[in-house]
């Protein structure tokens, strides 16, 4: 047994929730310190930078809702990834699935005769299906031909990106767009309600929270949820238990990619009211959702918190762009560092400190 001052260091198999939280917060704090070096290299005092970011996000009554708006797509895509990662399927394609959802719902909004009250629900259904369909090919390739899903889902992101570019420059280019590359604007009935005075399309947020809750229930109680957990944690045991990996992973991925598709619906129906350049539809939510899911450590409800945190980082990106004249890319620095510190600190989860000042005497006596 090792000692650290008056503490004894012990190995644990399942860390307590409080310990997980403490380590996660410590990792985030360390990442923020490391990111401070970037500010410093940019000629900005890190403390001043963080003060400006705080004043421009959490402390600003008009800016704070932006965190919620950014969190909405992160939550939907992130909850989906929680499930995929639980099934040990490395879905890196949430970005493309999100875009596919945006495309499908745009198609419904602009070109379907569905009447007003049913239009938005139809768009969400189309978005879910669009996302799920986009995730289907890599899933089938992995299950049938053992094609590495990391590479294939990622390639599908690029295919989605250029497909959107093609649509907005070509067949779907708006008649009222005057040479700009985007579609016509959606009819009123295809736009999501906002919290007044903000850009928070609350129905998407509610949908995300509901989905997180449903998934938590499903993973804990339903048979399929149990099968996904077993398959992810111990594939050999899953085989002996007669769990069909094909069906299980296919369903898990359909949900995962579909949820990312829903995030795409929220962005076009809630914010832009048209399909536009892929880099504007998604600010990289699909990639950041990987952090949402990883930080949530497989717990769908925790993804609500982690999505809010990533939402804070994205809205900080806006502040850094406007107030500190830094490119928006700086959010990638934050995301990368947080992810590094998060996984780097995971080994600590298997240890715990126990307050045991008296043991020292016993130990020396032994020696």
């Amino acid at each position, binding site marked *: 047994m090792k000692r650290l001052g008056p503490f004894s260091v012990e190995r644990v198999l399942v860390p307590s929730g409080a310990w997980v939280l403490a380590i996660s917060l410590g990792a985030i704090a360390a990442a923020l310190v490391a990111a401070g070096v970037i500010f410093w290299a940019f000629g900005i005092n890190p403390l001043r930078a963080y003060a400006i970011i705080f004043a421009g996000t959490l402390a600003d009554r008009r800016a704070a809702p932006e965190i919620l708006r950014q969190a909405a797509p992160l939550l939907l895509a992130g909850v989906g990834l929680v499930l995929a990662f639980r099934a040990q399927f490395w879905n890196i394609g949430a970005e493309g699935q999100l875009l596919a959802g945006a495309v499908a719902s745009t198609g419904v909004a602009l070109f379907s005769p569905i009447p007003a009250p049913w239009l938005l629900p139809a768009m969400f259904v189309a978005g879910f299906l669009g996302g799920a369909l986009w995730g289907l090919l890599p899933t089938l390739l992995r299950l049938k031909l053992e094609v*590495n899903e990391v590479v294939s889902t990622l390639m599908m992101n690029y295919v989605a990106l250029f497909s959107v570019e093609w649509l907005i420059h070509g067949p779907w280019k708006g008649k009222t767009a005057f040479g700009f590359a985007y579609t016509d604007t959606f009819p009123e009935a295809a736009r999501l309600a906002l919290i007044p005075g903000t850009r928070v399309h609350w129905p998407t947020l509610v949908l995300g929270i509901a989905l997180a809750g449903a998934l938590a229930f499903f993973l804990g109680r339903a048979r399929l949820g149990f099968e996904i957990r077993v398959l992810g944690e111990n594939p050999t045991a899953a085989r002996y238990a007669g769990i069909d990996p094909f069906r299980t992973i296919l369903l898990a991925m359909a949900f995962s990619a579909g949820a990312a598709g829903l995030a795409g619906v929220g962005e076009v129906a809630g914010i832009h009211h048209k399909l536009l350049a892929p880099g504007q539809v998604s600010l990289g939510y699909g990639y950041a959702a990987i952090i949402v899911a990883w930080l949530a450590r497989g717990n769908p409800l925790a993804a609500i918190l982690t999505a809010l945190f990533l939402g804070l980082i994205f809205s900080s990106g806006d502040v850094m762009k406007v107030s500190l004249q830094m490119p928006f890319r700086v959010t990638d620095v934050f995301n*990368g560092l947080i992810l590094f510190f998060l996984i780097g600190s995971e080994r600590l989860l298997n240890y715990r400190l126990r307050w045991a000042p008296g043991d020292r005497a016993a130990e020396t006596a032994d020696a």
Partner: protein
Amino acid sequence: MLEWILTAIVRALAVSTPLLWASLGEIYAERSGVINLGVEGMMILGALFAFVVAQVTGYPVAGLLAAAAAGGLAALLHAFVSITLRANQYVSGLALTMLGLGLAGVLGRGWEGIPLLNALPEISGLTYLGLLLAVGLWLVLHHTRLGMVIRSTGESPAAAEALGVNVHLVRYLCVVFGGTMAGVAGGFLSVAYRPSWTEGMTAGLGWIAIAITIFAGWDPLKAVGGALFFGALFHLSFRLQAWVPPEALRMMPFAFTILVLAATSGRRRGRGAPEALGLPYAAGER
């Protein structure tokens, strides 16, 4: 017509150069058992540092050396997190890609849009050196003791350790070597292929390099074929612009990657994927 074909070949060779360098590096990292999904991030850092150093010193070769150093340092981070801290290799590589793209975007802002004064020609020594390296690295991997040590580290680290191999050291060296190769690949883009710096100029080439690693069956010689194939595909996507929508063409290499992976992977297992690829190794632990 002949001239058309000749320029086509030259341009295709030019695009395949960075693909070859990056995938050769990745092959060595993965052969030692460590998958590094950070190729895109290491390449973009290499591109930025190569451009800045080449511009400031006036020597493109100095830029390439800086690119190698930048890529190697970035890989060192991945090595530390995934080998010493035994964190998930996939996630660590993704973090490296995010960090690299972010850092290059932030640090490179002032250098955007400036043409490089002393650029290297498109087909430079790097192309030939890349081909030579492919042969050399294949020889080392399959016909030397060092190669055997690397392969055994990736196949069965516990057995290698039992034979006195320092698994962690071998993995560190291979990952950092992969990083320097990816760095040079990025540097080639900014000092030779398109002598300037633009944010996000690697545009997915790093991911294609990872795909080449897979369907080359982790074999340096076959990577030459893969790189040439995708180089030709990228070039073709510029050439056909008069007939096909440009977006469809730019999508082509990525869509083809999926197709080729599907066609080559198949159910044929054991095509050279190192047995312990992606698994962290703790000395003396079971």
